[in-house]
């Protein structure tokens, strides 16, 4: 098999605490060697001078829409968008049609992804049948089929008794349960963060407490059951504090935050752009600062994009009717680089949260550049300025709050299992 030599980059490998200029050799699908001035004959050479070389990004929260909503995205388009954003492994949520609550659906996704997606795909199965929050799914069979976690995601399990049993039963297969923490009754019709902005907009508010109460409930249930909980897209200062305390008590709790909740406040919704409608909603500056601090301190383990494609016509409706969610893959790196520029996190620690830490939470490969690791690598130009145009991106959808904006920091190339699958000058190269 071909050999790929990535020459002269700043190698950032959180798994070995390496941060130095070095060459990286990928051979037979795996990392073969790292070191200064490697002499390799017959290898394809990628010049990484001035770039960062890191383990391929891993996204623990995405919606790839297949099966059933291929007009928004499919495993091919989603996978291409993923590698264009530097992601080599992504999980995908269960809210497909049919719902991924049956091993046959899990296997279908894995089979399609194998042929269609240049990124590796790992399904997250539903925690309850039909995401209805009542009857738990066959977790053992789903885990055997390849599910790496269980979640009803946006259809939060409102019945605490059901959630308790889901957490208890999940210990059988030792995979985390992912919670989209939102008390639906407290949220009501809320579509933007409750506060001065919702009052100005005249749109129904969704208070931080709707998130905090559910986080508190599920942390208590985690303590009771001894299960593993992963808090999806944490967005409020209150929830961050609850997770911080839970970890200090030794609970098996992890958390993710999205690029948009790290960089945008609810003021972004003031123009009623439906591409700023998310669940949870964009929060206040206090919440954004709490999330950034928690990410840099490690209270939040990973950045996850919650890549949520929606067709243009679905977003061209009024704010209340528009589905929540935005594209995430292709802008993620350029957006989170803001934290590095503001000196809130080092490049090495950012790579840990974009990649390495995910492998501790779910059974996904990568996260390391140590010899023998999978040949999943991303090459990044931290200084490159570029203007994001969703119409020229790889997703089938265009719903992004960063459309038309200049970002600094660009994915130069992505390598999956030793194959160059994306280069910014040549586009996605396979399949």
């Amino acid at each position, binding site marked *: 098999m071909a050999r790929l030599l990535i020459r002269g980059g700043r190698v950032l490998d959180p798994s070995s605490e390496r941060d130095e200029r070095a060459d990286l050799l990928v051979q037979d699908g795996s990392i073969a060697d790292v070191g200064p001035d490697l002499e390799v004959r017959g290898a394809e050479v990628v010049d990484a001078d001035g770039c960062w070389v890191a383990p391929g990004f891993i996204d623990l929260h995405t919606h790839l829409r297949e099966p059933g909503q291929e007009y928004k995205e499919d495993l091919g388009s989603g996978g291409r968008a993923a590698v264009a954003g530097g992601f080599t492994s992504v999980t995908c949520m269960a809210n497909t049609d049919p719902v991924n609550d049956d091993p046959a659906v899990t296997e279908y996704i894995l089979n399609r992804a194998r042929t269609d997606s240049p990124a590796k795909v790992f399904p997250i199965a539903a925690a309850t049948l039909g995401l209805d929050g009542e009857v738990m799914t066959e977790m053992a069979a789903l885990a055997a089929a390849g599910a790496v976690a269980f979640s009803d995601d946006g259809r939060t399990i409102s019945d605490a008794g059901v959630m308790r049993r889901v957490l208890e039963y999940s210990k059988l297969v030792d995979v985390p349960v992912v919670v989209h923490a939102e008390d639906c009754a407290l949220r009501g019709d809320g579509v933007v963060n409750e506060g001065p902005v919702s009052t100005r907009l*005249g*749109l129904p508010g969704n208070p931080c407490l709707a998130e905090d109460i559910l986080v508190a409930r599920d942390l208590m249930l985690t303590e009771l059951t001894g299960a593993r909980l992963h808090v999806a897209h944490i967005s409020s200062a209150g929830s961050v504090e609850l997770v911080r305390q839970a970890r200090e008590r030794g609970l098996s709790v992890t958390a993710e935050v999205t690029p948009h909740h790290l960089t945008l406040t609810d003021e972004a919704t003031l123009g009623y752009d439906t591409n700023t409608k998310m669940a949870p909603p964009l929060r206040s500056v206090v919440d954004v600062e709490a999330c950034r601090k928690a990410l840099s301190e490690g209270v939040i383990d990973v950045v996850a994009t919650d890549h949520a494609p929606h067709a243009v016509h679905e977003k*061209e*409706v009024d704010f209340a009717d528009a589905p929540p969610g935005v594209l995430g893959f292709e802008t993620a790196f350029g957006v989170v680089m803001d934290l590095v520029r503001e000196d809130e996190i080092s490049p090495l620690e950012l790579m840990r949260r974009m990649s390495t830490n995910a492998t501790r939470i779910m059974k996904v490969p990568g996260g390391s550049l140590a010899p023998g690791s999978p040949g999943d690598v991303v090459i990044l130009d931290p200084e490159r300025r570029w203007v994001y145009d969703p119409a020229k991106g790889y997703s089938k959808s265009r719903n992004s709050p960063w459309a038309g904006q200049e970002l600094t920091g660009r994915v130069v190339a992505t390598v999956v299992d030793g194959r160059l699958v994306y280069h910014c000058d040549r586009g996605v190269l396979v399949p």
Partner: protein
Amino acid sequence: MLGKDLLGIEDLERPEIERILETAQRMTEIGTRDVKKVPTLRGRTVVNLFFEPSTRTQTSFEIAGKRLAADVVNFSTAGSSLSKKESILDTAKTLDAMDPDCVVVRHKVAGVPKRIADVLEAPVINAGDGAHEHPSQALLDMLTVFQQKDRLDGLTVAIIGDIAHSRVARSNIYGFGKMGAEVRIAGPPTMLPADVETLGVKAYCSLREVLDGADVVMALRIQRERLEGACFPSVREYAATFGLDRAKLRYAKDDAIVMHPGPVNRGVELSHDLADHRPSVILDQVRNGVALRMALLYLISGRPRTRAESPQE
């Protein structure tokens, strides 16, 4: 003076409000003539695009347009297959292709007039969007108060009721505030929006306190069908705590006037007697509504149109 659209009072400067009110005051005279029509907007087309039914506001805009000799067309989507999940931008572009000179938009969700205005070449007047703004209502309220008090500066205006769901409240808070009045609000705590002080008002929970020293008392309509049992326990309790009658009105200044955007739930927001007689000025509000909307149509759609050149393809 005045941008392309009128989407909210929040966007207006005080001189712009003054100009609108002065123009409207002049327009009131036309309504007193035998022949209530002037040729000002002859050959211009005004479209009433109402996604949510509102007979009163729509009729007021229609009469206003007709008194200025505009061709007024009602494009009502309420009840049609269009009313749900439609592409707002599709609707807007379809309308724009018919070359209207002004589009008056009403929608139950905040922000829709702005989204339409963003893509429409024709000017847009917001005729009420969700709980956001209802600028023509606030302007006609200011005109009515000015006629009664001869000033707005220094007045104390008390707005009472469901502030959270009220576009009328927001527009009046901005409007009277910009004109130098002190605006206070009161209502059940469940009907006050989050962080409402950030709008520049003081919030009260007691009718007696909010009325103390008020020159203008504005009662808001309660959506009893939707909110009884949710935001307030019962109509009876609402009427007892926040309903106005002559006895409670004595907390306000002796010459205080009473306003309501209509339609009044009689015996709930206002006693029957107060709804019909001075010091209530409800019918003056309605009458001024026509003149005020004439002024808006004149100022916004009466300007010479400069059309963009068609792209060469």
